[in-house]
């Protein structure tokens, strides 16, 4: 177990209130207490909220393995009936994680303001996998999986008092923050959409951080970031996991300094990505000022439709968007293949990104919930399981569509409406989840694409793709131009992709 040796110091059931001294690196302690008794083993004494009978004790003395409150699961020791609150529980990730964690024995609560449903509707799009209203989803979860989810409709920014009351009522030991808009093109439509994205994401997160300080400061926060914060530096410099290792050295004028512990450079590629960068700083500061503990999870591009729980019943399915604003690339490609639209590569189509399947992302989140950071620790992971180019993915989707479903899939290059490098080096590090938290990817990309084809080819889903096929081709230009992108060429990619894979693909520390 990756968290066997963790102690109460990491446990969100610990009560450190009034026993810590909030400082920053390099900040002096103004008043030294010369009377401290050095005969004591430790001066931080904690209490356990779950086991008050322990009284005041040394929080490093009991390990997760030894504590009866921590129980073994396939993903590490987890608190018995752990209280996890998911913000954005109605979304693609939120709903899937809710069912996953509740099935694992967690007491899941969640909030949502239905923004995702509303904004997708505003764009004239819809989820191609039909989902019901929240009440019906909750009933289905109870009927099919026997799980209870405690849900409230709350906007975490505008209804801060309601959120605070709900958190005080539930006292979550872990908070998963998925309550953000995850669309670059949406934030680039016009000033209103840019403002709405940044307001929702940046201010919502800021409000949450203050609420956590005042209600559950020991709770562990899992905040969803994005690999897109880093950009794609043309030097090919590795994309570290958020923070420079101590071995990264800055050399200048014959002198050198360790960059260890400093945030790595960010180069966001849309106003949405800027909101995530701002979040990073807000979370980082909150950990520093108030000893909150947080994972900033730099997730790669997500794809897929399957977990055992969402596939258990049609009423339990999670939403899936394929429109130009909310559809991620693989999900969109499969939908295009199903209704005969050539898969769209933007520009050269040689953009390279990190990816992760829905099921694997759920496992990663669970492993991180099992391994809360230490008090005040701002930790970062790059949550990806492989690296692919857009061309390589188009080819894979075309191949699966042709070979397994007999679909005549074509691929086209269109004008790139974004401002981005469409040919660039890419070396992302993703060592922590496998090495520290025991994660091994389980999902084979071709198998998951196959599953997606199966679902998308069912009459109801295929009909829903057909109904909204006009929102797949991009019309949102970073430049502000209002026009649909034009096709540059139809491609026969086979030979080129093989070359591309051999020369350019590299998987680092997978």
């Amino acid at each position, binding site marked *: 177990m990756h968290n066997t*040796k*963790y*102690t109460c*110091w*990491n446990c969100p059931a610990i009560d450190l209130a009034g026993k*810590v*001294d909030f*400082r920053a*690196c*390099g*900040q*002096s*302690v103004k008043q*030294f*207490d*010369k009377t*401290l*008794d*050095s*005969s*004591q*083993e*430790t*001066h*931080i004494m904690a209490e356990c909220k779950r086991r008050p009978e322990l009284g005041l004790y040394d*929080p*490093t003395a009991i390990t997760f393995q030894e504590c009866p409150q921590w129980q073994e699961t396939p993903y590490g020791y987890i608190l018995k009936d752990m209280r996890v609150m998911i913000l954005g529980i109605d979304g693609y990730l939120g709903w899937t994680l809710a069912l996953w964690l509740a099935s694992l024995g967690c007491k899941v609560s969640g909030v949502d303001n239905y923004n995702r449903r509303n904004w997708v509707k505003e764009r004239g799009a819809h989820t191609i996998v039909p989902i019901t209203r929240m009440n019906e989803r909750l009933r289905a979860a109870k009927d099919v999986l026997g799980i209870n989810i405690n849900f409230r409709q709350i906007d975490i920014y505008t209804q801060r008092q309601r959120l605070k009351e709900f958190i005080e009522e539930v006292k979550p030991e872990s908070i998963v923050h998925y309550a953000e808009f995850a669309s670059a093109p949406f934030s680039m439509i016009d000033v209103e959409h840019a403002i709405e994205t940044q307001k929702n994401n940046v201010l919502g997160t800021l409000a949450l951080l203050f609420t956590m300080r005042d209600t559950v400061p020991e709770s562990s926060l899992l905040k969803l970031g994005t690999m897109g914060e880093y950009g794609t530096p043309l030097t090919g410099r590795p994309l570290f996991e958020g*923070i*420079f*290792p*101590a*071995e*990264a*050295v800055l050399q200048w004028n*014959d*002198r*050198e300094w*360790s*960059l*260890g*512990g*400093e945030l790595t450079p960010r180069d966001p590629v849309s106003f949405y990505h800027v909101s995530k960068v701002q979040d990073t700083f807000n979370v980082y500061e909150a*950990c*520093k000022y108030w*000893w909150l503990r947080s994972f900033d999870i730099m997730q790669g591009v997500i794809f897929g439709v399957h977990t055992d729980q969402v596939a258990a019943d049609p009423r339990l399915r999670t939403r899936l968007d394929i429109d130009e604003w909310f559809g991620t690339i693989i999900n969109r490609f499969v939908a295009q293949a199903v209704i005969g639209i050539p898969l769209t590569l933007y520009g050269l189509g040689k953009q390279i990104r990190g990816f992760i399947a829905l099921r694997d992302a759920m496992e990663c989140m669970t492993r991180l919930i099992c391994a809360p*950071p*230490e*008090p*005040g*620790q*701002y*930790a970062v992971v790059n949550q990806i399981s492989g690296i692919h180019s857009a061309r390589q993915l188009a080819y894979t989707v075309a191949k699966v569509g042709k070979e397994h479903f007999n679909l005549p899939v074509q691929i086209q290059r269109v004008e790139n409406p974004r401002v981005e490098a469409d040919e660039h080096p890419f070396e992302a590090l993703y060592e922590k989840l496998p090495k*520290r938290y025991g994660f091994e990817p389980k999902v084979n990309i071709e198998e998951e694409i196959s599953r997606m084809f199966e679902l998308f080819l069912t009459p109801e889903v295929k009909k829903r793709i057909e109904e909204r096929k006009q929102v797949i081709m991009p019309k949102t230009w970073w430049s502000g131009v209002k026009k649909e992108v034009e096709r540059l060429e139809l491609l026969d990619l086979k030979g080129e992709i093989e070359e591309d894979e051999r020369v350019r693909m590299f998987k680092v520390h997978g």
Partner: protein
Amino acid sequence: MSECECLRFTDKNFKQKVLECDLPVFVDFWGSWCPPCKMVEPIMDELAKHFDGKVIVGKLNVDQNQATRSMLNISGAPTFILFKNGKALAKIIGARSKKQLLDFIETALNPQSSKTSKKTVSKEPERS
């Protein structure tokens, strides 16, 4: 908390394990809220292996062990102090690469034969 190769010192054992130790002792004073401290963690384990039997390498959490922090006037994290015969021989504050820490320790222990460039390591006198 991950398993580590280096020792963990506390208020209770600091006198015996550090100040009264026959070998030089290199101590990392760290806090869990300090990102540079977290990034130096693996290096401390490597130093422990590197100096096996010659220098004791360990760390002390400044929040869990406030008496030692107070006694040594630790004002920032990470602070590294090399102790020899109960005395602080040299001290630096802030993250360093492995090479810089190796140079720091070797320079402090062998001031005459050091090949270290003074530009890469700043050495401060012990203040307490």
